[in-house]
């Protein structure tokens, strides 16, 4: 029997709320390899420098955003990681503290667009939705998003459900290729429907794809380089391909919730996360790209994460538009793609 870690991880991320002591410094973070790298690269250095005790509250962006809204003004964490569209949403709801750039010494070293409107968030890491393939089956490396439609791989391709970032990102990439815009996703919806209907599963958890590749059920996927790299390190045969139309970028931001009790420590933690040493360590462990442009990556890491040319070619969809349109896109997906 093959282990199925993805659902266990999903359920755990819902139910495992680390029991925090009253005076702990609490970080809301994604779990999985992201959380592991956080605990390796950032937490010990931060604890050593500040003497604080850190506890990590695991959750995905939507869970953290929901918690922010539910505890408005009296949050149960001091700093949080959120995908950019969710940081925009909570920022517009007035739940984020306005960040003081003067308190962050690396504020000027970040990629363009790293600062949210009114400095309500700062981008700390960059990853992307790209093509991942099994080189044992896919002999010529894919070069375009359209290679997912190659009849050779019919029934052996997998894309994400729209509830997962890779789902809406691939939809938008396809939409753009087919001539659509962010205000008109008709071409994308029409093009993606046959693919969605033909694929065995629309994955909702990134790690579901590991099992699919492992059992040889799929040969090519619209997926994440960091998850693929983690699977490769466990012995899977996978390769990363950045499509010529550009990968779709994913920005992990940090916000300080309004009413956070340990604001100064929160700044010091963001400082740690943005520091070149911290960023490099994190990139190498989690295979997620740095937001600090001064970080030099090894060739091995640079080929996997968005970096240099692949970073420049990546499409970063305006998070304001994503936050505004997501319910519409989701409703159309439920009705016209997944139905």
């Amino acid at each position: 029997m093959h282990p199925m870690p993805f659902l266990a991880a999903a359920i755990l991320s819902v139910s495992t709320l680390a029991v925090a002591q009253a005076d702990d410094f609490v970080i809301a973070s994604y779990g999985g390899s992201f959380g592991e790298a956080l605990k390796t690269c950032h937490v010990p250095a931060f604890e050593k420098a500040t003497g604080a005790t850190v506890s990590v509250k695991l959750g995905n962006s939507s869970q953290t955003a929901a918690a922010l809204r539910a505890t408005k003004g009296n949050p149960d964490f001091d700093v949080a990681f959120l995908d950019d569209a969710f940081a925009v949403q909570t920022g517009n709801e007035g739940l984020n503290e306005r960040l003081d750039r003067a308190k962050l010494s690396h504020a000027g070293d970040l990629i363009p667009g790293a600062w949210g409107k009114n400095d309500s968030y700062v981008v700390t890491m960059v990853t992307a939705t790209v093509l991942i393939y099994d080189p044992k089956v896919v002999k010529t490396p894919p070069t375009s998003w359209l290679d997912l439609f190659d009849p050779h791989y019919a029934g052996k391709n997998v894309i994400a459900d729209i509830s997962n970032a890779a789902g809406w990102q691939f939809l938008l990439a396809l939409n753009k290729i087919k001539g659509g815009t962010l205000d008109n996703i008709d071409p994308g919806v029409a093009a993606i429907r046959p693919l969605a209907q033909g694929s065995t599963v629309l994955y909702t958890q990134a790690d579901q794809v590991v099992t699919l590749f492992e059992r040889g059920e799929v040969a090519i996927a619209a997926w994440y380089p960091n998850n693929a790299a983690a699977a490769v390190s466990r012995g899977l045969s996978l390769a990363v391909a950045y499509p010529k139309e550009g990968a779709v970028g994913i920005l992990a931001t940090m916000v300080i919730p309004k009413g956070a009790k340990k604001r100064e420590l929160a700044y010091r933690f963001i400082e740690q996360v943005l520091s070149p040493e911290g960023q490099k360590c994190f990139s190498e462990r989690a295979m997620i790209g740095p937001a600090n442009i001064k970080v030099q990556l090894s060739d091995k890491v640079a080929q996997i994460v968005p970096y240099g040319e692949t970073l420049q070619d990546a499409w970063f969809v305006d998070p304001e538009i994503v936050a505004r349109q997501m319910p519409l896109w989701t409703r159309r997906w439920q009705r016209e793609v997944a139905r």
Partner: protein
Amino acid sequence: MMKTRTGLMLIAPLALVLAGFFLVPVLMLLPTSFGEYLPGSGMTPGVWTLENYTRIVTDDYYLEVIWRTLGLGLFVTLACLVLGYPLAYLIARGPQSWRVPLILLVVFPMMLNLVVRSFGWIALLTNRGLVNNLLIDLGLISTPLKLMFNLTGLMIGLTHIYLPFMVLMLVAAIQNVPRDVESAAATLGSSRIHVFTSVTLPLSAPGILAGSILVFVLTISALVTPRMLGGPTYKVMATVIYDEYMQLLDWPSGSALSFTLTFMAIAVIWLSSRLTKRWAGMA
């Protein structure tokens, strides 16, 4: 007869807990369900709208999900009843020495966590799962049967999970049927089948009703199993509500759907109890 005051005192602890931790939070959701949600900026303070409710009845996707949820509830209840009644009958009327082992067998799956049991079904039902691999190896099919992300998968998973509730309810009800009445019917010339259909079955109606309501309500409100076995393509009310709340952060829409589900459950319970009472001659 018990005094009203004593009765109130007896239910007071539970009533207080329910009021504080269930009723009040649920009622707090009511205003939210009439709120307006603007994606990107949040709930608009002071604006009230019926749109969250009108959308549910006018949108054919929501209607499809509602009918699917009700249908699933009905089918799972029927399946549990059909599978559970003979078993309950055997436990109640079979050899004494079988009773404890049988009840243990019925209860045993409940000792495993819901997630683990749903996992088990994924391992069995997925495209390269045990069932499909076996059928392919035996040469009975050439391409995997679609056993997950559809009605089949949810029916199997939910029936398995809720069968014990039905059986335990039915055992108690069948045990309560006086054997004298059955003997009397037999003495008066009724065949065994006739005794069962005209005496035992109607007299166990309260148990059938209680078990059915329990299974039905648990099924239409189940979240974990539908999320795992239904996936993103086969959604029911509970998973849609979860998505509205947790993925889209549209709390007003999620609240309106929650109230719709609650009212559907209450309506079905009310209707079925009336029908059953009439059938069992209790009305």
